[in-house]
């Protein structure tokens, strides 16, 4: 396991938590592009977790309230694939779970300013994540 202080390397994977509404079980590509839409408060970029800093990817669910965890799918994205889309992974330490990071380019301000560009990126992220589902949502609480 890597320490959070170690730099992010291209061979790493990041974990993204995908809410059940944005995951269609049984679909050829179950992750929807909404899973990569910045929220209003995400001025620094959307959240991910460095898998190398976690005991297992599902540890990322510790960042969410317990009653909501079953509502999330856990998916992986290669850092190298993110880089190919012009996205970097910037560590952003939080208290609850190690390895928290953000994708600073995919922030609410830039997303609103150029929705067509980011629509293409989001769909590609959804395609990449759809091929690496660690676990689907268990149920929506």
């Amino acid at each position, binding site marked *: 396991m890597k320490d959070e202080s170690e730099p992010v390397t291209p061979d790493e994977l990041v974990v993204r*938590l995908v*809410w059940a*509404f*944005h995951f*269609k079980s049984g*679909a*050829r590509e179950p992750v*929807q592009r*909404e899973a990569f*839409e910045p*929220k*209003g*408060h995400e001025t620094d970029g959307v*959240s991910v977790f460095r898998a190398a800093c976690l005991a297992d990817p599902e540890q990322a669910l510790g960042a*969410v*309230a317990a*009653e*909501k965890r079953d*509502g999330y799918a856990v998916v992986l994205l290669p850092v190298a694939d993110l880089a190919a889309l012009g996205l970097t992974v910037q560590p952003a330490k939080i208290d609850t779970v190690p390895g928290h990071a953000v994708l600073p380019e995919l922030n*609410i301000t830039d997303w609103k300013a150029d*929705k*067509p*560009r980011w*629509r*293409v990126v989001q*769909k590609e992220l959804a395609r990449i994540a759809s091929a690496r589902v660690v676990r689907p949502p268990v149920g929506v609480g």
Partner: protein
Amino acid sequence: MWAPLPPEVMSHLNGPAAPDGAIGWEAAVAKIDEFRALADDYDGQGARAPAPETIDAAAELVHGLTRAGVPSPTWVTPGVNGSVDLSWEFGGGVSVAVDVTEPDEADVFLLVPGRQPGHWVVTQTAAV
């Protein structure tokens, strides 16, 4: 009443290719209605629920699309910033999306591989 969707978009929606995994208009309407029960932070990470007026507007848009003979979408989901999103996925990576972001505004996207993404903003005017 919503302005018509751009002709390029309608040509794909009403084209010969059916959308992948279309859910049926009855299911789409039911899904939109379910969004009325959502509250802010429905995902525990700050997602904003669609406002009732936005949901009403999405329902009105759906009504117009069914009258125009458009096939039902592949997905109907709430966006994380208060929108109601409809999307149609076709073969070959082609997709159409209509995101009702406000009671009187929707973002429309047409993605065709190898082409610049198309983006329009359509509006709804109050009935006179």
